[in-house]
């Protein structure tokens, strides 16, 4: 009981969060209208390079990077409103990937690595993290990809999957096993031989993801992050990923609910707007109630993210609630659009697919709830 109460977080909202929410709300609405999202589905890069540059210039990649490395010196709490608004507009960019790469560097980079690589991200360069393997293990230390010391170099073996934005990234941070323990290594795009990246066919067509074959790749030893800090960095990365994915899902949930409501307010059957039928109205309200709960959890997780214990509980709860919110809302949206809902042209499918893909990255609802049971029961 004592334990439980002290593990449950409160909620708050900073001036910086509010300012970023305001800016992100209008920027994302303007830069990622649905026609644009649709147009990018077939685009190889999957995002607009000039808009990505604008995002760099806005300083959003620098939000959670310390000032000494060119950052703004805030935390992930302030990144959350930006990720939420991007999710609301299915705004595809390497923003989350790059922010996560920066978080790993903040936690476990050497001073020199921070100086070089954090500064790059803060300046607007894309980066990503390569974590998942064929085993699908979401516990990030359980990697099979290995690194072996060869003189003053590290030789890598194995394949990483579901590496988001790997083609756009100027560098990747890869989890490996080195000397029998988890370690993290920075790879520059130029370290990868031709053919190392295979674009994966993924359920979310707004995103870009790659299998990265590392056999034969070798990097200088100074690309190894601080081994003593790796365990903490991986734990931080697990939660950071969940927090930002929750933000994206929460925004997506609101968006697909609004999309549904707009249809229910215009489509008529049997002479009445279909929104007047309770069989349709009530589940739509349930979806909306889920979303509001999800937003409360999201901003509680953002607020408490840095707190030991509470931060993890709040983040995993936020992840569960956000996945549920977007999944249910999008599922019902497809259904309530009737025949149109079954077509590629109905936007509901984009959100449903987004939710499925996002759940694969840092642990789905079932996984989070098992972790929460360990933490709370």
């Amino acid at each position, binding site marked *: 009981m004592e334990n439980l109460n002290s593990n449950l977080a409160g909620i708050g909202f900073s001036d910086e969060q509010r300012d970023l929410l305001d800016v992100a709300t209008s920027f994302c609405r303007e830069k990622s209208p649905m026609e644009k999202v649709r147009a990018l589905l077939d685009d190889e890069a999957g995002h607009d390079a000039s808009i990505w540059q604008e995002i760099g210039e806005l300083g959003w990649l620098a939000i959670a990077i310390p000032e000494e490395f060119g950052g703004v010196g805030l935390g992930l709490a302030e990144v959350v409103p930006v990720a939420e608004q991007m999710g609301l507009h299915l705004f595809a960019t390497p923003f989350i990937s790059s922010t996560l790469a920066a978080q790993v560097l903040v936690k476990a980079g050497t001073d020199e690595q921070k100086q070089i690589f954090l500064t790059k991200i803060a300046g607007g360069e894309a980066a990503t993290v390569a974590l998942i393997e064929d085993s699908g293990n979401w516990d990030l230390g359980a990697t099979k990809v290995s690194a072996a010391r060869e003189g003053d170099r590290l030789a890598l073996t194995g394949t990483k999957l579901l590496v988001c934005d790997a083609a756009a990234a100027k560098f990747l941070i890869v989890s490996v096993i080195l000397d029998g323990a988890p370690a993290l290594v920075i790879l520059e795009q130029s370290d990868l031989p031709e053919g190392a990246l295979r674009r994966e066919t993924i359920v979310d067509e707004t995103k870009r993801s790659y299998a990265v074959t590392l056999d034969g790749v070798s990097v200088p030893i100074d690309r190894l992050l601080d081994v003593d800090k790796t365990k903490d960095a991986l734990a931080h990365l697990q939660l950071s990923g969940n927090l930002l994915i929750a933000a994206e899902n929460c925004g997506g949930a609101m968006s697909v609910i609004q999309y549904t409501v707009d249809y229910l307010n215009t489509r008529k059957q049997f002479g009445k707007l279909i929104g007047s039928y*309770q069989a349709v109205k009530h589940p739509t309200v349930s979806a909306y109630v889920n979303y*509001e709960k999800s937003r409360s959890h999201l901003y509680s997780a953002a607020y408490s993210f840095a707190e030991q214990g509470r931060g993890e509980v709040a983040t995993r709860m936020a992840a*569960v609630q956000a996945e549920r919110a977007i999944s249910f809302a999008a599922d019902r949206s497809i259904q309530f659009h009737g025949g149109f809902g079954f077509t590629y042209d109905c936007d509901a499918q984009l959100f449903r697919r987004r939710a499925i893909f996002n759940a694969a990255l840092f642990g789905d609802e079932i996984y989070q709830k098992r972790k929460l049971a360990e933490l*709370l029961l």
Partner: protein
Amino acid sequence: MSEYSQAELDEYANDADAWFKENTPSDPGFMLPLTFMEVGTDQQFDFLRDWQRKVYEAGFLGAAWPKEYGGGGLHDDFQTAATKAMRKHNGPILPNAIGLNWTGPLLNDIGTHDHKAKYLKGILNAEDIWCQGFSEPENGSDLGNAQLRADRDGDAYVLNGSKIWTTLGNYAKYMILLARTDQNAPNKYAGLSFILTPMKVDGVETQKIRKLTGEYGFTQTFFTDARVPTDGLMGEEGQGWKVAMQTLEYERGARGGQAGGYSMTEPDAFEILKLVRKAQRDGNPVLDDPVVRDQLVDFLIEAQSIDLNNKRGRIPDLVQDHPMALPLMSKLVWTEFAREVNQFAVSMQGSKSAYYVGDPNATDDGIWTRAYLNAFSATIGGGTTQIQHNIVGEHVLGLPKSH
């Protein structure tokens, strides 16, 4: 009072904490109701009425109501602090719920000076118990179709008809009544008026209703040529629907001004953890069952949702898109949660779930089963869960009205 110093508030909060610590009654030796809708015996009623009077006289109820009408004249933050202390020390519920939470705020907001002078203090000290006469046997969710007649005769209304689900009806001195004053109004709503009605007059009779738990707590109230004064009219004749809707907003927590304290114990997911830590099903500790663990986590997440929704509702920048959404969905969310968590608690007891209140083998004296059955009072009363879905759908999402 709008200005106060932190030191004043701290001192008040400390006093409240000390007072509730000292004065919160220990187990009276009989089962206390968890909500004001479950007061089934005179023994329970007398006990709770005494308790409310003590809390009021100590200065921890109605602290933010106007001083000239019996309140404390303080900022609402003081009452919030007192209520927090009451909850911390697990004080019993305050029984005069309809007075404290709905009628009082309504009187403060739109009542006349005479109304306030006559009624507010009696609400606070529990001298005057209030009940609500909205639902009728044939008109529950369709409240606007209420048919009880109020015919003006000089300075009196003559009442004929009946109201149902009157909580505390047999103890009440006054009722907030929704009655039809105009049989020929252009639509069903325009014929309604809202009348503060004395209960202890000729022609008003209450009959207890036995609930699904086997206990009492509600009455049906019959009006037969009952004469009540017209000065009890709230708003104008024909504005009853509007006043009733405002009253429901207090009831659902969508509008403030309540006297403070609480008249229902909040569903507590943490209490269920105590139960599951000791409960056995099928010969094994329930906490060893991964399915149970999964469900428990769901309840903890939901309990946090409710708490965080309440807290987020007080951060304007985080509710900009739909400012009224969280208050309007609050009743829907917590009443369904209470029902579900109690239902879950029943199933956690395995073979012991067969027992009911009164059997020596009943887990925790059977309170979980009783609480589950009683939980329907909240998912049905005050607008059913289904009506709440309509409200959120229409008033927040802007969906068309259902027919």
